[in-house]
């Protein structure tokens, strides 16, 4: 059975780019959100197992959203996909419950590799 994925990013073109790249893994996209608040609503309805998460978004930013989603389901796998390239932000995201961090701009290969690592780690958990 394919795993359920939610894509969170305030950019429509980034959401579509991630969706196209994720075809590689045959993931089922159960929802897309343009801000953290919307993401939490979709998460509660659809219970995705994997989430890609932007950080700079209106309404609720990605760090707050990671915290909320992780509280709802500590087993969810979260890959941060963000332009914020400093180490402190990556560490904070990982502390809040993300498992991976991919810096924008990214190629399809970068994304599939980061997703692959996330899925591989899950196999061993």
């Amino acid at each position, binding site marked *: 059975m394919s795993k359920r994925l939610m894509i969170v990013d305030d*950019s429509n073109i980034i959401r579509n780019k991630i969706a196209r790249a994720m075809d590689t893994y045959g993931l089922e996209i159960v929802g897309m959100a343009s801000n953290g608040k919307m993401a939490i609503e979709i998460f509660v309805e659809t219970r995705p197992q994997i989430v890609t998460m932007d950080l700079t978004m209106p309404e609720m930013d990605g760090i707050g959203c990671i915290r909320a989603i992780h509280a709802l389901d500590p087993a969810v796998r979260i890959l941060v996909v963000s*332009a914020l390239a400093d180490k402190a932000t990556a560490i904070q995201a990982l502390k809040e419950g993300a498992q991976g961090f991919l*810096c924008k701009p990214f190629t399809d290969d970068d994304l599939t590799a980061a997703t692959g690592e996330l899925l591989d780690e899950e196999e061993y958990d």
Partner: protein
Amino acid sequence: MTEVELRVFVAIVKNYFEQQTAVAADVYTPYLADPTALPIFDYTGVIGISGVRQGCVYFTAPAEMLRRILKHAGETDLSVRNLADLAGEIGNTISGNARRQFGHEFLISVPVVIKGLGQTISLPKGVKAYVIPFCWERLDAALVVSVV
């Protein structure tokens, strides 16, 4: 903004185009802007900067450049909505990448996108603005950095 700091933005612009399109951008020498004659193209993504630094960064480009970047990315929807989205996303990406050098207290806002050549941009008063002009696939565009 020092020369070294401006070089950070030059490197980020180069990296963005090389990575996203595999076609290098020719980045020209940055210059101090005349506040009454700031460069503006069809779509402009403005990012507010706060925290340890104050000001704004904006990316401005012609529609044709944005259409070509979308095509490079495999995007088939070349609507006005997506062109505006891309201008904002590039501004966001460049500003966010700058945190690698400026640190996590270089706070960036979500993008505000301005459409149209006839628009004017109001930059923070008393803060010098530097224009980083560049050319990609024979199309001119610019990044403007006005940060103190």
